[in-house]
């Protein structure tokens, strides 16, 4: 059965058929037929952001917390151009986002018409795929494929460019049941021989370590991961993209690896004899100097994207497949073989490191320090005050993000929204709005920097007007703090273009100007009450925390250094000096 409708109406029907319940859309000339069709939809809520970059980040945030594709709709030319950062961000982090751009009429494409840009050309390297639909009758198929491609295999953003004559043109509408993509067949099931090899390495390992990332979240494999870790008592390190997939209050969780990982995390990677890498890509921020990364370990690498396997680091057992499936397969094999954990001594060693080299800040005893407000302390308080309620943590980029990684304890999958691969300042607030749209039940907190928050602050209006009560906690250090940190460490403290006056803008007044709640905190003693007031307020709120300006994120691996050579933090020493002989003998034969 089919019926005759316009391209714009068809587009809306496609979105409804895909179960889209919210769309972030910013209109303009050639997008008007689509917005007009949306006006009649009872299933789709259209949210108007204040900038198209905000629309895409919101769609991205929505996707991260729900696991369902986020959708943004914008006009041609400048509207389309403003989606680029959002697309690149979603692409780097493999987030399923569908962006629909309106385009000038097919009759004038290629003539530099008003508000014409070649958005499909521009976005080839930052989308998983894109479409320029030249005929209304091709629209349903393109939409079906776009959603399929965005959400399957290794997820990613897909863009569909819709010329205005296509949205005005008519077609016989029928939404396809399936796609026909001969060149696109992701491998989900791991090769059973490879799985057996992995199992044999796991049963023999004395110092195994699970190194897991965003791929496990994407595959919905949190349960399988936990089963494997617990069955064989294997410590787990989650990358920044993998955060929240494993409960961070679990005794086997050993923190985030890499440039700002804890010392114990990086030592564990350095000393492991088996690294089970799942849904990760051996990013340079994790590995530091590649040759030294996990150099004592055999490596099993599980990923749905074959191009990631062996890209940066040679592996011993490659397994192409969906993380959830493969982990389940490994657990089943281990159970069948009646495998028993042999890692008691190794776990003890890692725990010992955890005790000797904890994350720390502000000298020896912070609790006694009632004068200085440390940013890490603010994050710890957010963590404490939200631990018994459903919470989603979003971040901006810079030191604020790293402190959020280090000091917030995540407990449930998909409660972490942070820009990884691209490191996009200005991501946090619009992403928080998208997250709130996807999780109306949750308290959504954006842990922000004073620089980043100013990049998309206009979205506070979106939050206010559309009833998204997001809470922004600004770690206001008066600097582009991460830049300042690098300048302090590597450029002789020459703070070139990294100073932001702490009192400009006045974030409390700014919040009030948007009709939101604003509160300033200058002393540690006031943190809890300010946070609580913001969390309890029925609407968006800003907590402006005037923190110690020149605090650095430690420990830190200098770019290009080996990850066990860390600056700052509790001084480290060679492994042999850290542990007593008995333990050493047990774990290192």
């Amino acid at each position: 059965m089919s019926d005759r409708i316009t391209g714009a109406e068809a587009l809306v029907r496609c979105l409804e058929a895909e179960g889209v319940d919210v769309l972030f859309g910013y209109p303009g000339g050639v997008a008007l037929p689509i917005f007009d069709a949306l006006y009649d939809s009872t299933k789709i809520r259209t949210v108007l952001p204040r900038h198209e970059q905000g629309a895409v980040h919101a769609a991205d945030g929505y996707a991260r917390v729900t696991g369902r594709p986020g959708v943004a709709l914008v006009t041609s030319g400048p509207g389309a151009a403003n989606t680029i950062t959002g697309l690149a961000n979603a692409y780097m982090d493999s987030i399923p986002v569908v962006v629909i751009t309106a385009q000038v009429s097919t009759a004038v494409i290629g003539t530099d018409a008003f508000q014409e840009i070649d958005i499909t050309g521009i976005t080839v390297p930052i989308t998983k795929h894109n479409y320029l639909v030249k005929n209304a009758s091709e629209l349903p198929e393109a939409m079906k494929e776009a959603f399929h491609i965005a959400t399957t295999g290794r997820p990613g953003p897909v863009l569909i460019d819709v010329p205005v004559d296509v949205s005005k043109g008519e077609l016989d509408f029928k939404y396809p049941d399936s796609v026909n993509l001969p060149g696109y067949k992701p491998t989900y099931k791991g090769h059973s021989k490879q799985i057996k090899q992995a199992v044999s390495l796991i049963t023999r390992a004395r110092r195994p370590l699970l190194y897991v990332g965003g791929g496990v979240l994407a595959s919905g494999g949190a349960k399988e991961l936990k089963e494997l870790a617990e069955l064989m008592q294997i410590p787990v390190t989650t990358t920044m993209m993998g955060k929240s997939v494993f409960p961070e209050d679990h005794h086997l969780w050993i923190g985030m690896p890499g440039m700002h990982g804890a010392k114990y995390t990086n030592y564990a990677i350095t000393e492991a004899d088996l690294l089970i890498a799942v849904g990760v890509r051996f990013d340079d921020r994790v590995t530091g100097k590649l040759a030294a990364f996990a150099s004592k370990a055999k490596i099993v690498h599980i990923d749905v994207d074959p191009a990631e396997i062996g890209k940066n680091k040679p592996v011993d057992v490659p397994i192409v497949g969906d993380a959830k499936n493969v982990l389940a397969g490994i657990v089943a094999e281990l159970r069948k073989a009646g495998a028993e954990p042999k890692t008691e001594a190794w776990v003890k060693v890692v725990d010992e490191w955890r005790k000797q080299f904890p994350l720390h800040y502000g000298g020896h005893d912070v609790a006694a320090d009632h004068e200085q407000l440390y940013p890490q302390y603010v994050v710890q308080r957010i963590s404490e005050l939200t631990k018994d309620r459903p919470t989603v943590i979003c971040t901006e980029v810079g030191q604020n993000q790293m402190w959020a990684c280090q000091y917030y304890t995540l407990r449930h999958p998909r409660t972490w929204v942070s820009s990884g691969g691209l490191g996009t300042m200005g991501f946090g607030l619009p992403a928080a709005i998208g997250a709130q749209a996807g999780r109306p039940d949750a308290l959504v907190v954006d842990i922000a920097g004073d620089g980043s928050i100013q990049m998309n602050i206009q979205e506070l209006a979106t939050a206010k007007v559309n009833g998204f009560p997001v809470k922004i906690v600004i770690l206001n250090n008066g600097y582009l703090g991460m830049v300042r940190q690098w300048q302090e460490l590597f450029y002789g403290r020459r703070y070139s273009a990294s100073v932001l006056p702490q009192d400009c803008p006045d974030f409390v007044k700014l919040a009030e100007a948007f009709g939101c709640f604003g509160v300033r905190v200058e002393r540690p003693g006031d943190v809890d009450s300010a946070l609580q007031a913001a969390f309890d307020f029925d609407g968006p709120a800003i907590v402006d925390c005037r923190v110690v300006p020149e605090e650095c994120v430690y420990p830190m691996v200098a770019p290009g250094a080996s990850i066990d050579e860390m600056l700052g933090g509790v001084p480290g020493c060679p492994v042999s000096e850290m542990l007593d002989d008995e333990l050493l003998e047990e774990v290192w034969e």
Partner: protein
Amino acid sequence: MKHTLSVVVENKPGVLTRVTSLFARRGFNIDSLAVGTTEDPTLSRITIVCSAADTPIEQITKQVHKLINVIKVQELDPSESVERELVLFKINAAPERRHEIIEIANVFRAKIVDVGRNSVTIEATGATDKVDAMEDLFRAYGIKEMARTGKIALTRGREG
């Protein structure tokens, strides 16, 4: 080291750009590239010669394979495949030197396709090294213009 990749793609607008821009973005130099339809009119074959060390060639092959419109990517082993290239040379040829040039062309089983007052144009096909050898010899006379198609290749019959 040079590698020959045979890439079968859907015959749709923009697909060639997707493939070539991927090479540029991932830092691979394309030495030559030839495109045309295959036995199936909905598919095209792109033959790409590029230079790379051994590990990265596998990386680019995998990345190309990930493109939605790419059906198949194959690295061709020279000993297991037939390779050809077409070339046109327009060579300086005063009347008294013409027969020398024609003789060389004959040795290579090349064809004279045009003769002007001071030039001859020669068409030749062959594997890349043969074309290179001809180019080398003709340089002595002065090549006014040259056009090479870039290599096309197929695997030998054995594997069907």
